[in-house]
């Protein structure tokens, strides 16, 4: 019985076991069917969706930054170039303690305090997730040393990048300008112009000069590369690539050698020089002294250098050629003479007897000539040669300010010349209307008298003076000064020459008037003229006019005594000139700050530039510029 019971139990248990095993088998089939359903859903129905997700995961499109175009002078000398170098960059958001990480880094590779200061400044100006350079131009050895220790520096990355370099350093820095890191204002501008896609991956942009003005030509077209990335965001390999299109090379009108000669000729003086081809408007030299080294700006300037440049009393960052507004002094006289001839207020023969001063009818004030006792009998020719003030006091008074304004405006004063780089100032060619608007004051006859000798409200930039001088040299036909000569298209390999702009109407219609002024300006450089010394021995004819611009005003009857004045209050020396006088190849305007007399300081600079340009010779022995050597020609 017991045994039977046990056996039956055993049999019952076996049945239960087998039934339950069978049930389990059924459930297992159901479970696998569910899995199979899930796999089918993922791999058949949803396959496209997940395929897209996987591709998005693995593929990232990275921009390929184009090479920036080169800047060459008219003879092919390189003014701005690119070189490839390694930089070490930090993404601050990926580093817990940037300061400490840099400390640690400096045990591996050199990090100067200048690097640190520059980095700190960059960090303040940038967003946290941007990659910022801590060191540039790493040597191969430094790269290797860092690579070995890379694991210690998360958020640090070595990058091979193209750098901008300005091999000429300070030379022509104001014309070439520089590139710098893109800042918020740049980003806004790029966005507004719809160029944002083309600037992906680019972190530098032209800021000033040619670099700034021709950014579009120089930048090129950004390419792209599809890269496969891993989950950590590292690029594994390139899948496809659309090549970037390099920026176009620019050939500028500058003649580097002439530019150097001109800059050197200034010696230690501050000032500006603009040299223009009077037939085409091409600017062959554009000097603003002192200059600066544009290389400092490329990767963010460090605060120390920035302060030195920005706070220097010499204002090296100020482009005096375009932005310096000075009274033209006596250099305005040839234009005044032309205005009087054109408006028939003076004939060439009209002669005054100069007592050494001028008075307006009914006013006791005496407008003095620079020469006590006067120049005797003075006609128009002589008025230019000896720079007679009295002659022009009367001439201006008879022309009236609005005629003067009209003529000076026609030769380009009082408005930007439209040169193809930014930042140019307009100067000032005053008129009655202007004074009313500006000061709510009536124009007085005395105001006009001062303008007659280039003082008073009249202000010009050296560039405007050069352009106006070129107009005389070009027989009264104005030209647009410009810096771009040709564009070497990187796509077609063709060179597009920038032709002279649309021919303009002559502003001086009578060739005799030009001939008269030109002849007088030639005599300025001959014995008896105000630039006789600097003109001596020239094998070609130079036409010129000297000038002086007061830095501090003087009271009536006070005598200008340079010994009592600090040097920074000495008068500025000015000069306009062109040569050869009969077939002008070069027109100049020169400003020498605190150079006192146009003939003595600016004259030798002009002579050196002309000698080099026309004869190809360099000054053999350079005498220091001496502002005091021609006292008697105090214009």
């Amino acid at each position, binding site marked *: 019985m017991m045994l039977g*019971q046990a056996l039956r*139990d*055993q049999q019952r*248990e076996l049945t239960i*076991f087998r039934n339950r095993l069978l049930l389990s088998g059924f459930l297992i089939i159901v479970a696998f069917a569910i899995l199979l359903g899930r796999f089918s859903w*993922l791999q058949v129905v949803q396959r496209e969706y997940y395929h897209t997700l*996987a591709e998005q995961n*693995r593929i990232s499109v990275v921009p390929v930054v184009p090479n920036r175009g080169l800047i060459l002078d008219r003879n092919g000398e390189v003014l701005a170039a690119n070189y490839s170098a390694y930089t070490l960059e930090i993404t601050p958001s990926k580093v817990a303690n940037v300061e400490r990480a840099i400390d640690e880094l400096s045990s591996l590779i050199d990090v100067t305090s200048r690097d640190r200061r520059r980095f700190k400044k960059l960090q303040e100006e940038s967003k946290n997730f941007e990659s910022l350079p801590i060191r540039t131009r790493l040597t191969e050895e430094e790269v290797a040393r860092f690579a070995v220790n890379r694991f210690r520096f998360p958020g640090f990355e070595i990058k091979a990048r193209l750098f901008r370099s300005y091999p000429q350093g300070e030379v022509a820095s104001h014309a070439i300008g520089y590139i710098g890191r893109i800042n918020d204002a740049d980003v806004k501008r790029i966005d507004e112009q719809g160029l944002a896609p083309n600037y992906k991956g680019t972190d530098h942009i032209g800021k000033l000069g040619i670099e700034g003005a021709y950014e579009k030509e120089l930048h090129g077209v950004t390419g792209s590369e599809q890269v496969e990335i*891993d989950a950590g965001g590292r690029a594994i390999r390139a899948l496809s690539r659309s090549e970037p299109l390099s920026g176009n090379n620019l050939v500028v009108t500058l003649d580097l050698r002439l530019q150097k000669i001109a800059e050197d000729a200034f010696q230690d003086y501050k000032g500006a020089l603009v040299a223009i081809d009077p037939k085409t408007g091409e600017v062959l030299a554009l000097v603003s002294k002192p200059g600066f080294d544009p290389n400092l700006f490329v990767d963010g300037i460090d605060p120390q250098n920035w302060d030195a440049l920005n706070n220097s009393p010499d204002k090296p960052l100020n482009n005096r050629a375009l932005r310096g507004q000075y009274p033209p002094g006596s250099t305005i006289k040839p234009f005044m003479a032309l205005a009087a001839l054109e408006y028939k207020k003076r004939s060439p023969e009209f002669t005054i007897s100069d007592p050494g001063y001028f008075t307006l009818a009914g006013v006791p004030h005496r407008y003095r000539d620079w020469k006590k006792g006067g120049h005797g009998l003075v006609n128009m020719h002589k008025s230019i040669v000896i720079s007679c003030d009295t002659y022009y006091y009367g001439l201006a008074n008879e022309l009236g300010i609005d005629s003067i304004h009209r003529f000076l405006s026609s030769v380009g004063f009082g408005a930007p010349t439209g040169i193809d780089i930014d930042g140019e100032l307009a100067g000032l060619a005053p008129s009655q209307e202007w004074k009313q608007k500006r000061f709510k004051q009536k124009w007085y006859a005395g105001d006009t008298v001062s303008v007659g000798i280039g003082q008073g409200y009249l202000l010009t930039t050296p560039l405007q003076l050069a352009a106006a001088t070129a107009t005389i040299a070009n027989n009264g036909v104005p030209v647009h000064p410009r810096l771009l000569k040709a564009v070497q298209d990187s796509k077609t390999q063709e060179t597009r020459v920038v032709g002279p702009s649309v021919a303009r109407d002559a502003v001086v219609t009578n060739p005799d008037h030009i001939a008269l002024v030109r002849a007088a300006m030639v005599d300025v450089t001959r014995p008896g003229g105000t630039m006789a010394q600097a003109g001596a021995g020239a094998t070609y004819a130079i036409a010129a006019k000297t000038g002086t611009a007061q830095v501090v005003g003087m009271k009536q009857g006070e005598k200008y005594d340079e010994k009592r004045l600090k040097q920074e209050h000495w008068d500025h020396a000015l000069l306009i000139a062109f040569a050869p006088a009969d077939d002008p190849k070069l027109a100049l305007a020169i400003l020498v700050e605190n150079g006192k007399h146009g003939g003595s300081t600016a004259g030798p600079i002009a002579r050196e530039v002309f000698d080099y340009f026309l004869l190809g010779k360099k000054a053999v022995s350079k005498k220091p510029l001496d502002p005091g050597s021609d006292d008697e020609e105090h214009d």
Partner: protein
Amino acid sequence: MISRIFDMITRRIDGPLMAALALTLALGLTVVYSASGGSSFERAVGQGRNLALAIFALWLFAQIQPQLLMRLAPAVYLAGLSLLIGVALFGEVRNGARRWLNLGVTVVQPSEIMKIGVPLVLAWYFHRREEGLRMRDFAIAAIVLALPVGLIVRQPDLGTALLIFASGFFVIFLAGLSWKVIGSMMVTIAVAVPFLWPMMHDYQRKRILTLLDPMEDPLGAGYHIIQSTIAIGSGGVLGKGWLNGTQAQLDFVPERSTDFILAVFGEEFGLVGNIVLIILYMLIIARGMMIAANASTVFSRLTAGAITLTFFTYAFVNMGMVSGILPVVGVPLPMISYGGTALLSILVGFGILMSIATHKQLVSS
């Protein structure tokens, strides 16, 4: 001579089961090679070594008579239990869990021993009480099961606890636990869930929430599931080809050679590969059930059944988790995932199955 040696070696090996196992293991090796980057043999060779050891263990356990195994069962269980207590008291903490015990000579994970120990001891218990099981026997069995599972849950190692609970539950279930009790247990669990919820660890709660909505935390807890479903889904019907899975090769799939190796497999071999794998698993399970059904003693049949069903649980939980229908618990894909311990315990299990399959004639005679 050679055939006699071959016969000696293969005497205790079940041919059909071994064939299915060998195919699956070979497949596993190729996937491990791919999942380790497809350029270095280091992992594949390492897995090969693990495999050699595990196959030897399989062979060894296949030689051991089930009766001997039964006699050893209580000792194995007690040893395992004391080691688990040792872990709770002196265990090493790694990755925030106390699972390892340093024995001076070697570091062991005692929960692995219990994967075999629990079903053996329960089968042993029911075998001894075969004259007629009462409710009391099931209650005792429940305690025997609850002790190690509770200790492992506390480590915490929810995945392993679940598998050990499953293996024990299968023995009890196959032994004939009444449906009434099973039904009321299920009701109890359903009722207990709201109370268990606050007792769970943060990461465990997160895993369950993540399953419900992986996009809620796409870079954190949801990342695993999102990337593995992308991998499987993008594989399509035919797969991207061996070594060509972008998700896997570019490191988007986390733990791709261990717990998430199915994502690599599904991406590179597609739906076809998954079907082949499921068929292989089903063949193994079917053979295991045949062995269990034909086993001659209560101990043998309960052990064989529990081992087979536990194997199924391994496969299903892992595949469900990687394809996003079950929460993420640390369970490797049996015989495919890289790792020696899991492989060893699974092949030891199959060794016991083979022993049961090949020793039954002796018992019945």
